[in-house]
């Protein structure tokens, strides 16, 4: 009887630990070799044959095609620079410049990776659509209500993810976070 309870206990511990760790790894999007700059994170290695098992599992679960490294690099942000989650009811300002790339696009998704419906059918920006300052830097306001300048509507959803994709860029597996890879700052300006 003691043996039965003992092995049952060990098996339950195994199931909880094993499946719990798998669930956590997949929902947090864990993979090796992240490149973090401010609140932006990219996994350049995920777009190569050297993608680790965690990256492969999370890609299969989400059902997306990763951006291949020869194509570009995708940076995601789900918090501001102070670690506060991005809330669609707040005004969030992206300011600064991006690393050198032939083109970049910025897209807003909900946490499931779907686009958010809005009155002007704008789901993001490309590098050519942006209105810039004289020095080449830009400012994008991510907010539920219309704003002057580069306005990216949130549709008022609670949580969203920003994805900044650099196409044809030198940023890759060997890139270290630092001065040569500037990413726009993410600041929550005001919350209702």
């Amino acid at each position, binding site marked *: 009887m003691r043996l039965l309870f*003992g*092995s049952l*206990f*060990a*098996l*339950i*511990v*195994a*199931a*909880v*630990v*094993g*499946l*719990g*760790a*798998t669930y956590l*790894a997949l929902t947090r999007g864990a993979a090796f070799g992240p490149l973090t700059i401010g609140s932006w994170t990219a996994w350049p290695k995920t*777009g*190569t*044959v050297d*993608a680790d*098992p*965690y990256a*492969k*599992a999370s*890609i*299969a*679960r*989400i*059902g*997306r*095609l*990763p*951006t*291949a*490294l*020869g*194509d*570009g690099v995708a940076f995601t942000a789900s918090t501001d620079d102070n670690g506060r989650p991005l809330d669609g009811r707040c005004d969030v300002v992206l300011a600064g410049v991006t690393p050198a790339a*032939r*083109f970049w*696009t910025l*897209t807003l*998704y909900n946490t*499931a*990776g*779907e*686009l*958010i*419906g809005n009155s002007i059918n704008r*789901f*993001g920006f*490309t*590098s*050519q*659509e942006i209105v810039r300052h004289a020095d080449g830097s830009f400012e994008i306001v991510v907010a539920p209500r219309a704003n002057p300048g580069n306005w990216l509507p949130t549709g008022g959803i609670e949580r969203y993810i920003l*994805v900044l*994709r650099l*196409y*044809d860029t030198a940023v890759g597996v060997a890139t270290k976070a630092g001065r040569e890879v500037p990413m726009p700052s993410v600041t929550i300006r005001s919350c209702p």
Partner: protein
Amino acid sequence: MIRWLLLALGGAVLGGIVHLATIMILPRTATQDAYSRLARAAAVNTVTELKAPTPDAAPMPFMDPAFANAVCRYDLSQGPLKLSVPVSLAYTSVSFYTRYDVAYYAINDRAAGRRVIELELMTVDQHNQMPEDEDITAADRLIVESPTITGLIAIRALAPEPGLMPMAKRAIAAAKCVHAE
């Protein structure tokens, strides 16, 4: 007490094995991965245009709405494939994925350096069996080796502003993916 601690420790070690095994097996059992999603919509060895993602429906999550997209779901069991993609005015890229959605190669219009991205896709075996002909080993012939027999080619053209989407779509529509003779 010590007995239960030992059992918990053993359970945790076993749990680590369960964790690693589930992570390794997951891509092979997933039914909603990108390849499976697109397999329903895309025929084998032809270029299929993908609908632009909208808030209501999208072929896959996390698609870039600024791009016109097409896929060629390939099966190399009958021989190598020839792929040709005319480049659009802005940015065109071709990315190769294995059956399990691992990106193994990508090329863009600038790297290709001409008006049409042309390449041949074959398995490692098919590449090895190719006769070592002077013409065939010519440097201008771009050969890509696929690690798996089946897989996906994603063909994408950027519309830098919404008004240029028809231009990007036209470039994609002229892409071809056919059996090499």
